[in-house]
């Protein structure tokens, strides 16, 4: 056990901090949103793109990627230092995160050379934003049952069908998408992974208002959309394997324990400031118990992720750790937000900029948003299925 970083890594941390002090935007509405994936106005989108470019110019975007694709081949230690500093300094999230955290790594792993050259640079600079077209009205948890059809016609696929809950599709430039290319094959073996230009004729995007009151995800309809054959990632009919590599990236992305620590710090800040029923919130024995329980669960996940980091450095495989992380962290995040609402009492439901809203009304929004994250990326129940089957070896259900 040794929790210290090397001198060089600590130097790197100081450099990141110094850079952040100089470049961090002042708290600014255009970049607000915490972990909310919705950027619901053109100003917010361009401010967010500009921020990603600033970070990219400093060399801090996707530092773990190979040098030939614009990364620095930074060690896992440095990736985690960077992530930690960004979150602890409350740097705005990167708008291109779906490309950076999901598609990019997938292309590096399974893409062709031409695809990497074509797409990776613009993922880094946020010149092209991506969305994830997996779920369909009839296929959520049972993703492999998806029906959106793609047929080869000469040099291109022709896509027909519908996706739903597609976050950021209303402004994304591209979609990584799962389509059925062989309806006769068993369901996992007839799926392909396509990259689709959102400006293609035949695509219609209908925004859906989320329970937060904001647009966030969408329905996407495809009518005879032509997609060049070179936009197929991996083998024809081999899309399920490609998708699964991306799903693990997604689960780990949703399970950032640094974000959880930040939420917890905010909650403790709130508890220290507020009074309830005439005395300080932190004096109430029941609240102290609840806060301590949350702190303990957060710390356990923090050390657990450090342990996973070490395992990764030593080249040990993660097993179902992505599912454990996703399950535990998303539920913990929601519990933290729920505790904040409890502390706030009648002030809890006050949203946004309404008078008397605490912390700019972010708690109720995050409380809702974190419930969505328990569902998105594979529900808690699905993660429990995965854990019980893959880690514990229990039989699949009938």
């Amino acid at each position, binding site marked *: *056990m040794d929790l210290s970083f090397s001198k060089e890594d600590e130097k790197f941390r100081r450099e990141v901090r110094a850079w952040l002090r100089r470049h961090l935007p002042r708290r600014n509405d255009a970049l607000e949103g915490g972990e909310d994936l919705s950027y619901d106005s053109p100003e917010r989108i361009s401010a967010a793109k500009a921020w990603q470019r600033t970070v990219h110019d400093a060399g801090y975007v996707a530092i773990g990627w190979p040098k030939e694709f614009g990364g620095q081949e930074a060690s896992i230690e440095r990736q985690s230092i960077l992530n930690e500093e960004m979150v602890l300094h409350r740097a705005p999230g990167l708008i291109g995160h779906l490309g950076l955290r999901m598609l990019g790594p997938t292309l590096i792993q399974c893409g062709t050379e031409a695809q990497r050259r074509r797409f990776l640079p613009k993922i880094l600079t946020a010149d092209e934003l991506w969305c994830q077209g997996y779920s369909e009205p009839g296929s959520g948890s049972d993703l492999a049952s998806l029906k959106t059809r793609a047929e080869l016609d000469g040099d291109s696929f022709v896509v027909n069908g519908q996706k739903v809950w597609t976050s950021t599709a209303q402004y994304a430039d591209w979609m990584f998408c799962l389509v059925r290319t062989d309806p006769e094959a068993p369901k996992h073996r007839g799926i392909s992974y396509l990259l689709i230009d959102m400006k293609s004729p035949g695509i219609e995007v209908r925004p859906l208002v989320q329970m937060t009151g904001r647009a966030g995800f969408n329905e996407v309809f495809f009518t005879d959309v032509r997609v060049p054959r070179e936009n197929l990632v991996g083998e024809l009919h081999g899309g399920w394997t490609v998708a699964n590599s991306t799903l693990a990236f997604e689960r780990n992305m949703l399970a950032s324990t640094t974000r959880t620590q930040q939420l917890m710090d905010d909650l403790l800040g709130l508890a220290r400031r507020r009074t309830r029923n005439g005395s300080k919130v*932190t004096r109430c024995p029941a609240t102290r*118990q609840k806060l301590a329980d949350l702190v*303990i669960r957060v*710390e356990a996940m923090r050390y657990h992720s450090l*342990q996973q*980091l070490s395992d990764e450095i030593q080249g040990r495989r993660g097993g179902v750790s992505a599912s454990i992380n996703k*399950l535990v962290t998303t539920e913990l995040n929601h519990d933290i937000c729920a505790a904040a609402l409890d502390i706030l009492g009648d002030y809890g439901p006050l949203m946004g900029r309404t008078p008397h809203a605490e912390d700019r009304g972010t708690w109720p929004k995050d409380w809702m948003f974190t419930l969505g994250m328990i569902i998105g990326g594979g529900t808690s129940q699905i993660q429990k299925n995965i854990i019980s089957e893959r880690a514990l070896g229990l039989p*699949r259900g009938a």
Partner: protein
Amino acid sequence: MHFGLTADQELLAASARDFLAAESPPATVRRIVEDDAGVSPELNAKIAQQGWQGMLVPEEYGGQGLGVLDAAVVLTELGRFLTPTPFLSSAVLATTLLSIAASAAQRRRWLPRLASGEMLATVAWLEESDRLDPAGIALRVRRARDRFRLSGSKLFVLDAQMADLYLLAARTAAGQGRDGVSLFAIPRDATGISLTPLHNFDRTRRLFEMRFDDVVVDRDQLVGREGKAWPHLERMLNVACVAIAAESQGGAERALELAVEYAKVREQFGRPIGSFQAVKHLAAECFAEIEPSRSLLWYAAWAQQGASKEASRAASMAKARLGDVYSRTTNKSVQIHGGIGFTWEHDVHFWFKRAKSNEVLFGGPDFHRERVAALSGW
């Protein structure tokens, strides 16, 4: 940066598991549990031969000079097998207390014999008030010229039936605060000591009431400075928390394995009960709690070498969390076993009971969450 066990520690874990699988299988545990005295001298001797009793004893006193994390590795395996042996009471608690509080002469006198397992010791701390703060130590010691005389009783003393030496926390000055708490080392055969076994439901670990009826103690049996023992006890409390959390980690792992093994073979409605989601999700929830707990435990064990405030906070975090996790896991494990799980004949109830006794020993989850709150400054 390395979060995890060293290669040596991994080896220690594996060899401890092999050793205990051979020497402390459920049948052996059951025999000791059903034994009146609850002691197996043969098993204790074999464990001493492994060198475990001296793990935490500094090398200069004949031990291995290892750290709390090493002990936690062994305790995890002892907890997994529910091995009834005085490792916690003697090799961890009493040894820690003597190592930090005793004079060089006292250490020379006792530590080598504790290390070899030739002698066992235990700590007598709690009283009827059952409180872990300084006010919980009320047993009054009176000075009689250059000796001390003491009368009163102690409760919940671990393994007192086999200990040769009792480390007694008592008050040498009036009051309820930290000052005035002193520590005495009293040999088993001192006149005026009597033991009453307390019939607790966890028979893998025996607890006793100790009565002291005008016991006379020499000056050289005072351990550390008179009236200044509280910080030593607090440090030992932290080590106790980590040690019990480690046992609980191993016990929870095993209780879940038992449930999963059973769920794969027991059939109802024409299929294994482990294919029912209600059962699978119970098991998955346990697993998703147990895995992160291990990281918290290792951190807490490692933190014992550092600053005392963080050592206390981390110890309490691990103790609170594993108290809850072990109890929940064993409860679900019994349920997954159905009726057979409720019998004396099946082994799973031993883990169920041990979970609860570990949960309350040296402070329950509520006590430790409150301690975390106070140490965090809120």
